[in-house]
């Protein structure tokens, strides 16, 4: 495991960017759960769905898979078990 990569300021910056876009989506999701008719919020949600994919794809290309069970492609050896876990960083 190349731990050094996950200790760089760039990693923390990129992770932060992903956490920020995911937070926007989570907040909009909870809001829409109780305001399902708000078309403007839905438009905003769908905009960030596209944005999120771009950010997550770039993140995974650099730092390995984010999700298990086939939602992220793997490098060799199986990258999922090679990269550090959130509490190890």
């Amino acid at each position, binding site marked *: 495991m190349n731990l050094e990569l996950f200790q760089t300021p760039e990693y*923390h910056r990129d*992770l*932060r960017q*992903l*956490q920020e876009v*995911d*937070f926007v989506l*989570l*907040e909009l*999701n*909870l*809001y829409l*759960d*109780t*305001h399902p008719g708000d078309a403007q919020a839905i438009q905003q949600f769908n905009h960030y769905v596209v944005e999120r994919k771009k950010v997550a794809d770039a993140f995974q290309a650099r730092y390995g*898979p*984010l*999700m*298990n*069970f086939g*939602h992220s492609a793997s490098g060799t050896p199986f990258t*999922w078990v090679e*990269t550090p*876990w*959130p*509490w190890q960083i």
Partner: protein
Amino acid sequence: MWVYEKKLQYPVRVSKCDPRMAKFLLEQYGGADGELAAALRYMNQRYTIPDKVIGLLTDIATEEFSHLEMIATMVFKLTKDATPQQMEEAGLGANYASHDNALYYSNAGGIPWSATYIQAKGDPIADLYEDIAAEEKARATYQWLINMTDDVDLQDSLKFLREREIVHSLRFREAVEILKGDQGAQKVF
């Protein structure tokens, strides 16, 4: 089903080894108003709640699991370098005797998590009022925990979690209003 994402919802940094604070944080790990109780409460209530609120309970329960992971990360980081002596001095001697430095679902007083902490009444208003109260109690607990540490990195993560309780409480209150509106509409018949 659930799929895991290999990242925290919000960064968790700690500036020192601090088993004393880790012990207090266990209140939000395996305590009555902690994240495990919250996640399991909402995840279980959703099967019998009216359809309009199932999405909200599912989504908040899922977010609670990410908060559980943040608390676990805090406890892990605060205790991973602690010696048995430091654990004992911090009041975690009994914890160490049984679990070494492993995490265990108990509250700050060492009492194991219990399903008696959570309810499911099959009555949507009763369930949602419990959920609102749970969020407010968790918010208060986060404030007491923030007051107990001078670690600004830890405070930052705890403040994020405190704010999430406020948002969840607000959403549950809106869910009550949605259900009240439906009840009112039925009275027309």
